[in-house]
């Protein structure tokens, strides 16, 4: 693309806010009432993180593997790509994330045993992604039908996944965080370009996660 410096973010926005939020309405209608199952899976993840069973298992990673593959296929590839051709190149990253989580599961699962401040930030992320996100529509003057639900929509899925990874002590955690972080950056910028007041949420969570991961790298392990 020539004269790239003359382009603004608005020049890459292919759709209107109305089309964007109606996309969630249609997606929710298509998969209702699967939301109860994904929310139950999310609550199970919170429980497994807060009260790890005596014998560690790959359950959290397996749940997230299934949900990343599901969201990547049903939402990004099959729905979002219809209004945003760039998503064709992004959707496979959700498949890659599912694969990485599956590898983590095959290796016995992540050790979700951190209890430092960063880990508690992770727990807050889990609460935001699984509990708070579906409750956002009225705050932003949108219908409930457009709710973004963990395991159905990408943003809450990415935020909750980051939450899990912030509680993990293994070296794979930063690698597994890359795709959720990049997605939240992309989603936040898209919302910001639409002048949507919700834009700060994915951007703030991504920024906070990067800060926690960076601080951990800078702070020597005790």
């Amino acid at each position, binding site marked *: *693309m*020539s*004269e790239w410096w*003359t382009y603004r973010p*608005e*020049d890459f*926005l*292919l*759709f*209107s806010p*109305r*089309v964007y939020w*109606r*996309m969630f309405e*249609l997606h929710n209608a298509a998969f209702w009432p699967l939301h109860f199952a994904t929310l139950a899976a999310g609550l199970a993840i919170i429980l497994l993180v807060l009260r790890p069973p005596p014998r560690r298992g790959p359950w959290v990673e397996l749940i997230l593997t299934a949900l990343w593959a599901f969201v990547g296929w049903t939402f990004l590839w099959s*729905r979002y790509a*219809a*209004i*945003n*051709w760039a998503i064709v190149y992004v959707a496979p990253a959700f498949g890659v994330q599912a694969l990485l989580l599956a590898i983590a599961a095959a290796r016995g699962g992540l050790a979700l045993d951190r209890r430092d401040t960063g880990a508690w930030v992770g727990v807050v992320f889990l609460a935001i992604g699984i509990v708070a996100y579906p409750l956002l529509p009225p705050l932003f003057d949108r219908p409930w039908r457009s709710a973004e639900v963990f395991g159905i929509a990408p943003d809450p899925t990415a935020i909750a996944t980051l939450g899990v990874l912030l509680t993990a002590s293994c070296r794979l955690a930063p690698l597994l965080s890359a795709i959720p972080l990049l997605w939240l950056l992309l989603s936040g910028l898209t919302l910001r370009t639409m002048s949507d007041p919700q834009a700060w949420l994915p951007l703030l969570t991504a920024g906070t996660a990067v800060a926690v991961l960076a601080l951990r790298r800078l702070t020597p392990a005790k």
Partner: protein
Amino acid sequence: MTLTRRTFVKAAAASGAAFALPGVASGQAHAPLTRTIPSSGEAIPAVGLGTWITFNVGDDPVLRDECADVMAAFFEAGGSTIDSSPMYGSSQPVIGYGLERLGRPDTLFSAEKVWTSSAADGPTQIEQSRRFWGAERFDLVQVHNLVGWEAHLDTLFAMKADEQIRYVGITTSEGRRHDLFERIMRDFPLDFVQLTYNVVDREAEERLLPLAAERGIAVIVNRPFRQGELTQQLESEPLPAWAAEIGASSWAQFILKFILAHPSVTVAIPATTRVDHVRENVAAAAGPLPDAVMRERMAAHVRDL
């Protein structure tokens, strides 16, 4: 080049534009203004329909029907040119849906684009676009933003010679690559160019619009409202009382009349999702148009707001 009354009239005569002289109505009441495509002499209505963003509604059945309603109102009001691109997401299949629902109006003037850096992919992309529209052939295919322009122009001129398309064009937007654009206009037998021009974005007046008149190239104007930004900014301001002299009853009509009154302009392609707006847009071409002096007054008024 500054547009004086003299050059204004001269260019109008050269382009065969049916615009209004001062104080003279452009045509009969309610009859949409038509402009002549210089390379063929074919007349087309001067207000078309753009589809950037507005028609990219995916598979949403409600919004697809709304787009079809806009198309129905557009054709009913006397519109003809619909412009799209493979870059516009789902706009092409949405146009195809609307055309199918409307029984494929024979007044349609289909304006498409080729948008790929690969020369080899050009014909495949054009064919896919044609299938999306459900059209027998496109009236016009343009090289979108000059992407891969050399190879695509070869393809398009060959398609025109083979009667697979009727007209060949190039596009730019927001003032980009005007030097190259001008060179291509001089060196190739183009039928159409598409560029950004409105009451605040007037760079095209300097070289491109006079060159289009000189070379006998039809001009499609994109982003007449700066993607709605201009009309949104102006909506809080009252329309000047003298806008009634040119028959403008809204800021959208005010801006469109400014654009259409330039004698080099063939078609302006505002995009909208609303039936009332598409009617209003097409109606902008039905009444009197401003002369050169009035156009400067209009530009100064908007600049000073």
